[in-house]
């Protein structure tokens, strides 16, 4: 009989973990396989880096308790149907308290169908399209600037330097680049700048000779366009080789890669819109400064962080801040805290749209504009816009090709 009591006592101990640590489970899927795997990796590293730092500092403190952060994640193979299956599992089986979004807008929309019906908060840093935020979602929040504002900074800067600049826009025929340039064309018109050429090319284009000739004969002063790495880099090289002599060049994506330096003189003066760069100098209200973040990240991963890593880290940091402000992990209270957030972090300002037509869309954060300049005799990127984050002055017109 005594033994039975002992057994019962032991069972009770196991069943009720009275001394168990409070944990918050955050679930997400990442594209380890499939076409999006490269872009997804930086974001995942950002998440994990944040988790390790929070746990090392004792966890998230809310309402007098402290919560350790636990991740559950699966590979979604970059497929929408799989995303729904896995988010259903994350919520029901793994009991995730909060969610991060999958990488890309196309995967975030299917995931939101699941997260919204369970009232789970999902923070998005991997998809820049606005459409998922126009569907009346209540618990979806995005920390990065949407595609529509990718080139807003470039247009502003250009207008300030030359209010009569003529623009040529030539860009890859993919959803993201088309969205970005369509919005930029409207903003240019609103700013009184003249768009003299507006064309798209197939993403598999390898020879831009005819395109460059068209740009030259359009008499444009400024060039905006590009798409992905290889087409953007080739375009920059051919613009230089054919002496297009632009006063301004903004190319999407490609110049944000350190490999762009291989172009040598063709890279000089080219600008790229970026969500974040290692040189940005915002004064954070909480969390690390950019310098601290970069140093700790490099020590851990032996590579400089890209903006995916920084925005992934920001996802976590903003969620943590909202939980701490709410003093609770109750989804409604945390949602209210997220709706009210207006803060500056090392990633920039974060504030979410709260009107039902755009709920959760990022309205605080601004793209920075980085320019390839000579730094101590070597090519490197400097942040030149907006002025409050700049690390060097903008060169305009860009150094002429020789």
């Amino acid at each position, binding site marked *: 009989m005594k033994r039975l009591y002992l057994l019962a006592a032991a069972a009770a101990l196991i069943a009720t973990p009275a001394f168990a640590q409070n944990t918050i489970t955050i679930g997400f899927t990442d594209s380890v396989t499939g076409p999006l795997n490269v872009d997804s990796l930086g974001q995942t590293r950002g998440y994990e880096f944040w988790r390790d730092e929070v746990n090392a500092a004792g966890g998230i403190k809310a309402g007098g308790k402290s919560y350790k952060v636990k991740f559950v994640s*699966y590979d979604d193979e970059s497929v929408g*149907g799989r995303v*729904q299956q*896995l988010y*259903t599992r994350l919520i029901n089986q793994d009991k995730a308290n909060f969610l991060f979004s999958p990488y890309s807008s*196309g995967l975030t929309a299917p995931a939101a169908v699941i997260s919204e019906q369970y009232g789970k908060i999902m923070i998005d840093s991997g998809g820049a399209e606005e459409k998922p935020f126009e*569907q009346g*979602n209540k618990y979806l929040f995005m920390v990065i600037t949407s595609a529509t504002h990718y080139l807003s900074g470039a247009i502003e800067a250009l207008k300030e330097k030359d209010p009569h600049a003529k623009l040529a826009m030539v860009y890859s025929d993919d*959803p993201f680049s088309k969205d970005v340039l369509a919005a930029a064309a409207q903003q240019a018109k609103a700013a009184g700048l003249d768009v003299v050429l507006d064309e798209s090319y197939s993403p598999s284009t390898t020879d831009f000779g005819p395109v460059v000739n068209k740009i030259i004969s359009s008499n444009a002063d400024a060039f905006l366009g590009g798409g992905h790495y290889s087409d953007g880099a080739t375009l920059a090289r051919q613009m230089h080789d054919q002496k297009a002599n632009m006063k301004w060049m903004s190319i999407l994506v490609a110049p944000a890669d350190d490999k762009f330096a291989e172009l040598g003189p063709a890279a000089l003066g080219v600008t790229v819109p970026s969500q974040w760069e290692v040189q940005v100098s915002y004064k954070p209200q909480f969390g690390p400064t950019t310098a601290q973040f970069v140093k700790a990240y490099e020590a851990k991963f032996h590579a400089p962080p890209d903006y995916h890593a920084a925005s992934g880290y920001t996802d976590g940091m903003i969620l943590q801040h909202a939980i701490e402000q709410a003093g609770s992990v109750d989804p409604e209270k945390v949602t209210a805290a997220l709706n009210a957030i207006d803060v500056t972090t090392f990633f920039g300002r974060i504030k979410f749209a709260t009107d039902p037509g755009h709920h959760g869309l990022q309205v605080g954060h601004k793209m920075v504009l980085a320019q390839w300049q000579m730094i101590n005799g070597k090519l490197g990127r400097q942040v030149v816009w907006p002025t409050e984050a700049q690390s060097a002055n903008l060169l305009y017109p860009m150094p002429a090709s020789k």
Partner: protein
Amino acid sequence: MVRRPFFWIIALVIAVFAALPAIGNNVEMRESLVLACVYITLASNLNLMLGYAGYINFGSIVFFGLGGYICVWLVYAHNWPLLPSLLAAGFGVSALALIFGLGILRLRGHFFALATIGIVEGVQAFAENFSPWGGSSGIYISPAVFKPFGGAAEALWVIYFAMVAVMGASLYLSYGIKSSKFGLGLLAIGQNEDAAAILGVPTPFYKALVYCISAFLPAITGGLYFFKSAFIQPSDAFDLTLSTEAIVICMLGGQGTVTGVALGAFLYEELRGYLLTSPTFADFQLTIAGVLLLIIVLFFPSGLMGFIYSRFPRTQKVLE
């Protein structure tokens, strides 16, 4: 047909699919079985072309994607209810398939296979440039479309039962065709098309008809799938990987058999799902899947059903 045990086996499969997740409101199981239904439907309908008539169709995904586009577009831009949108998708895609089929089914063997890839590329290029369908960024539909069903949670159940029904219809279709004169004609075409023609099988008509029929149910499944995702874009809708997977499933399960293809699709999806979420295998799930495929191809060349038939010859009488 109703007197044959296989008819009731299919009925049992449908009942199990419908009942299992509904008991205890098991949504995780439902989400896993949804994908199994998609694979079974795609593979079974592909099997009509591949297994029966012997024509390799790399473009079966076109039916799925186009069906998805038509359905999502009708719901999104014209506020149609789901059911008529699905039917429009099914009939619309079948009609297109008939027109395409009359053209490309003049080709045989490798040339036909190449032409089907061309159709995928062509239709995808069309979708990418057709602005009412959102061009390359696709169509996002608001979760508000789920309201008529009582909300997203209820809508997902309705969609699931619809997908099970479509899957069941695919199995009955495969079975019905196989045991009909039409099916015998197709099998004859698969064996030797010239001989079949000489023996009086109207080959061009049969081929176009089977191509058209094999488009109907995948189009409806596509409609359901993308309605469920609330999003469709060309690169997802016309993903050649899914086409290839359907072919692999037919080969693995045993092309030309109803049971083998369905079982192959089910096992394929459940295995993938298990490997992806298993803490032990998640990091090298592709390696495991690859090794398993290799073992099956090397040791069971006639597919799962070939193995079962040779081991248990009696099953040939029961399992089609």
